[in-house]
């Protein structure tokens, strides 16, 4: 925190970027309560392709359906951030946890009884049926919703029964009692390799093709492809931290692994993760508006920067459709990059 205060005083670009981001955050929070003249989807077919600064009500002009560009830009900022922030938060959380665990435990520190492993595999297969297959069937054939709830309840209760009643019995058998090592590190590396074997944008475009555009699907696909970066980073950091003397000291005082990881190690690897987080939010904003521009990101009823910019394709002389949302997008990404750039600098200086 001290470093940030120092940066705040010394670097004017950091100050401006941070102020801009704070203003944007406040805007996103209060936007629904602001008394705007129009709603983002309100059509005004008499004033199509109105030029900016000419009309007193449409300050930034209108698009091909007479929707107000200013209101759409503001709401686009809100929707973009409301997707980018939670997605990046969740994927950073997943990535940090998996990466730190993989780095800490390596390939041969986690043991489990074979019986328990067997039960876990069974539970996963059962849950795949009850939690994934049944709801998908319900969606495809338009069945009643109660089926989903009943199958959820049945699925979880079968799993709980297996875990608490059958597992102790299985672990009595001598052949299933032996401990097996779980190669957690290899599993993590393999799955990261799997997800990065194709370019991100390609996965995003093709998967968003397979179902009608929805916020839920877009977020899930984004999270699935974005956690790998953070996981790699925090695994590498964890491997470095593990060698440091204070970790040895913590181990020798008899702390539990859980406490060492969460109390000692994670606070020390959090700063590169924060930098990656800020950087990732910028990237996500760009990707979300790119997908919306192509018409395969958010549903068409959601105001977004990409949707407004896509209006340029029906009228090439409407420069304001690109300039305002595009400029806003570029400014936001720039502010995020400046912040992460300065944060990288101070962590490097502290490292020396």
């Amino acid at each position, binding site marked *: 925190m001290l470093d940030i205060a120092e940066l705040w005083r010394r670097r004017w670009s950091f100050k401006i970027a941070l102020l801009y981001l704070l203003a944007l955050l406040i805007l996103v929070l209060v936007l629904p309560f602001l008394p705007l003249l129009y709603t983002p989807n309100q059509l005004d077919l008499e004033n199509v392709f109105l030029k900016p600064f000419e009309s007193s009500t449409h300050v930034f002009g209108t698009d091909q359906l007479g929707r107000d560009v200013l209101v759409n830009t503001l709401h686009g900022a809100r929707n973009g951030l409301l997707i980018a922030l939670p997605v990046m938060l969740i994927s950073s959380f997943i990535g940090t946890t998996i990466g730190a665990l993989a780095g800490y435990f390596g390939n041969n520190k986690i043991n489990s009884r074979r019986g328990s492993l067997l039960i876990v595999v069974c539970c996963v297969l059962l849950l795949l049926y009850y939690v994934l297959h049944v709801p998908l069937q319900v969606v495809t054939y338009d069945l009643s919703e109660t089926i989903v709830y009943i199958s959820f309840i049945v699925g979880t209760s079968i799993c709980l029964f297996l875990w608490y009643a059958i597992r102790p019995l299985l672990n009595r058998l001598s052949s299933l009692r032996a401990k097996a090592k779980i190669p957690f590190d290899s599993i993590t590396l393999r799955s990261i390799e*799997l997800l990065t074997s194709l370019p991100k944008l*390609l996965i995003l*475009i093709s*998967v968003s093709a397979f179902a009608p555009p929805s916020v839920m699907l877009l977020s899930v696909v984004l999270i699935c492809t974005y956690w790998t970066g953070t996981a790699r980073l925090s695994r590498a950091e964890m491997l470095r931290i593990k060698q440091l003397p204070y970790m040895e000291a913590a181990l020798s005082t008899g702390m539990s692994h859980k406490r060492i990881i969460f109390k000692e190690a994670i606070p020390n690897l959090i700063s590169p993760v924060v930098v990656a987080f800020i950087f990732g939010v910028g990237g996500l904003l760009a990707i979300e508006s790119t997908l919306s521009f*192509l018409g395969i990101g958010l549903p068409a009823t959601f105001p977004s920067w990409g949707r407004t910019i896509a209006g340029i394709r029906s009228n090439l*002389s409407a420069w304001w459709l690109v300039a305002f949302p595009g400029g806003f997008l*570029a400014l936001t990404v720039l502010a995020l990059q400046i912040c992460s750039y300065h944060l990288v600098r101070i962590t490097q200086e502290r490292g020396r």
Partner: protein
Amino acid sequence: MLRHLFHRLLYAIPVLWVMVSVIFLLSRILPGTFGEQLFADEAGFYSKGSQQQKTIAYEQLLQRTNQQLPLFYVGFASIKAAEAHTGYSYLLPDLNWNGTGNQYHLWASEVLTGSLGQSFASTRPVTEVITEAAGNTILILLFSMFITIALALVAGITMVLWQGSKWPQLLLTFLIVLDSLPLFVLSLLLLLLLASPDALQLFPVFGLGYSSVANQSSITSLLNQLPYLALPILCMVLANLPYLTNQFYSSLSGTMQADYIKTARAKGLRSYKVVTRHALRNALLPVITILSDMLPALVAGTGIIEIIFAIPGIGRLLVNSVLARDFPVIVGIVVVIAVFKMISHALADVLYTLADPRIRNSAK
């Protein structure tokens, strides 16, 4: 050397196979089959026909595209049929074995024989559709890559040479600002500035011109297309320049700290010679890996450019088939890019060993 390469490929193939299979299965599992929108669309071709005709046409479509077959070797019976008996029969998983007559098996055996199936929309073989589109994409990629590498090299070297003066800082600021513009905003802005009648009209806007005479030689047709390709290539160059320059610069300034550079300086070589003769070759090594990582991702990037400038290429084909839900083409493009990525990684390995004798010796 060859053995090492062979090992790399052997490890990469299963990973790729799993990923491509997942994409294939996802394309069929998720709701929304090809042909559905034919009937949803009120003003569509089939809207005049009766309900019975519609269902017959739909079933014929499913028959033609093999979509009526079960998806995988094993599968659960669909609930619709099971629910007819009792209210709760769906709670019992009903596994059945589908044999080899399933969509995955047919698709996989086709891929292994080198065919990628037929497009749902046009019933042409997917390989034909893709090779037709690939030419323009490869052209844009190659040109923009060469120009970007050359510019990034020049910029990196000048920034190292002029360290301490004002220019590197200015160039860095410019590159940071350029980097914050997403590709599609950048290309739209350039389109508005350089190809619209309101501002400067230096370039033609859309398409690739008329393919006028059938038996032109390839060079003249390329020359005809070049003005149309100039602006897209410029966009690609500007979009990739910041990242590549940054990589060159950091790797160059890293090698400038090495001891042998001090020796070269102490010999009294001019700093220009020090950089080009001694530092550059070592600094280029990590860039090979970066380039091979970038290439497949660039194909997706060219897609956006191709859409904006209406150039028929792989990316435009991808997005268009996404909008039309033409699954065989989408999966086909995924397969092609995945193979392309694998090959470029292997190639980077070979180049790396050729460029660095230390690795060659340790590999033996």
